[in-house]
């Protein structure tokens, strides 16, 4: 029996629409569930107090500080490396074996599981370089982890700067350095910032790599060498060990809110970037 192609088309369309709706439903199911359970626990005390009794009472001030500190280290280290690599790949060399190797390395890094970054950070930064479980070890591990993201987004951003901009700058007597600082970086900035923001998002969300490198101390960190606990790690420990479900939900809700804000920020930048380049 031959089915009318129009009937098959309607069936296929219905299946495809329902798959898309299913994806959205799943997303909202996760987000709304966590937010509805967690938002009531987010009070000023929750945000401003240090956890006490293993996190059973008190707030989450030190995990918030720990998250910010570790992320800051990661961004400060990864941004110059990532953007520099992107400039090298786009402005300083032709396509060659070495650019292929660099791209292959970056793409391979992007696929490495976070737990393997955790193992590496532990043996290299914590043990071999004697940095101990610390903000520095955690931040450096995360820097390595987000490096490929920053390389890729910066490279794309620099590539979309019209070649004419470079030519005009050179024709006005601009040097390569001047062209880079005054022309390329400003035009590619929204794209580069998007990569950095996505990197921040990954740092905030990461658990496996930081728990092995930054530790899980609940004290407020006092220096880069202090061990610390990020919000994601705090949430994991609270939830897994059943320490306080209420505070776990609160921490998770705060994480989701942060990720929402980070995504909105990245999207605003992308739309500005797209508007500018057209």
């Amino acid at each position, binding site marked *: 029996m031959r089915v009318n192609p129009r009937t098959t088309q309607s069936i296929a369309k219905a299946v*495809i629409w329902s798959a898309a709706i299913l994806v959205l439903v799943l997303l909202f199911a996760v987000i709304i569930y966590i937010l509805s359970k967690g938002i009531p626990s987010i009070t000023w005390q929750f945000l401003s107090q240090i956890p006490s009794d293993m996190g059973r009472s008190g707030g989450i001030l030190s995990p918030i500080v720990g998250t910010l500190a570790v992320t800051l280290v990661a961004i400060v280290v990864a941004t110059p490396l990532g953007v520099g690599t992107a400039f090298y790949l786009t402005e300083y060399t032709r396509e060659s074996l070495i650019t292929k190797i660099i791209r292959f390395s970056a793409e391979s890094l992007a*696929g490495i599981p976070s737990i393997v970054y955790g193992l590496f950070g532990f043996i290299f930064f914590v043990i071999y370089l004697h940095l101990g479980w610390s903000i520095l070890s955690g931040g450096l591990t995360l820097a390595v982890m987000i490096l490929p993201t920053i390389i890729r987004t910066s490279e794309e951003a620099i590539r979309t700067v019209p070649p004419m901009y470079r030519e005009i700058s050179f024709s006005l007597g601009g040097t390569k350095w001047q062209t880079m600082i005054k022309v390329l970086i400003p035009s590619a900035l929204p794209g580069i910032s998007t990569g950095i923001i996505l990197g921040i998002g990954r740092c905030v969300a990461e658990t496996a790599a930081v728990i092995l490198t930054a530790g899980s101390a609940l004290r407020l960190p006092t220096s880069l060498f202090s061990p610390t606990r990020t919000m994601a790690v705090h949430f994991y420990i609270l939830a897994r060990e059943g320490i306080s479900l209420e505070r776990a939900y609160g921490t998770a809700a705060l994480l989701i809110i942060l990720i929402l804000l980070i995504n909105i920020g990245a999207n605003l930048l992308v739309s500005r970037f797209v508007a500018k380049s057209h």
Partner: protein
Amino acid sequence: MKKFGERIPQSLFFIIALSALSVLALITIFIFIEGVPLISKVGFFNFIFGMKWAPSLGQYGIFPMIVGTVAVTLGAIILGVPVALCCSIFLAEFAPKKISNLVRPAIQLLAGIPSVVYGFWGLIFIVPIIRNYLGGPGLSILAGSIILAIMILPTVISISEVSLLALPPLLKEGAFALGATHWQTIRTVLVPAARSGILASIILGIGRAVGETMAVIMVLGNAVALPHSILDPARTLTTNIGIEMGYASGEHQQALFATGIVLLVIIMILNGAAQYAVRRK
């Protein structure tokens, strides 16, 4: 001021550009240095195919975890890939612009949610459903597969969508001109033409599923025994490291690094395959 910048030589950029390569090399070297001694002590065959993992007795066999990893990943692919492919076809072909501009950031958000949050949601939401309706402890391969299926959606959707959108419009116009319906065009022309990108998206999805740790720790039950059904708890290579790294030392710690080697090798093979699939157009 002008001179300062000019004096920064090209070689500095070259050195910076080597950071990705050197980090990749460092990761590989350090994990191998830590893990290889144990593998050579236990024996490669005994390590990979050993059925018993009992660090306190000096027994290090990771076969049950390899089975666990394969089972959970396979489940995630079976559940996740069809939905993801439909969703990418939806975005590339069917969705009105207004809707796709709404769905794309939503999928990006799905990728940004911390994996621990997925794990927790699975523990609270999915595990009890499985326990009550299908039996078993609930903490199971099935629960892990469902959570991972959700987590690989963004990877598979975005890469397949890009490869569908990158097709020359001529293909579609040609099929339409021959009187094919939209769906016939998608099924017989567009999807086959984009197959290498779609394949790459699936391989990268497999990579994500194999590499995920925290979400899986929370829903898989983490038993070291060989699982016999999808309702049994299991342990994956990643969760083995995630659970025991906190207290392991000495030989036990080396065994976890050795687990890391196996994981790294699997991921490198998958990465290489995905990059090959993308380039092969």
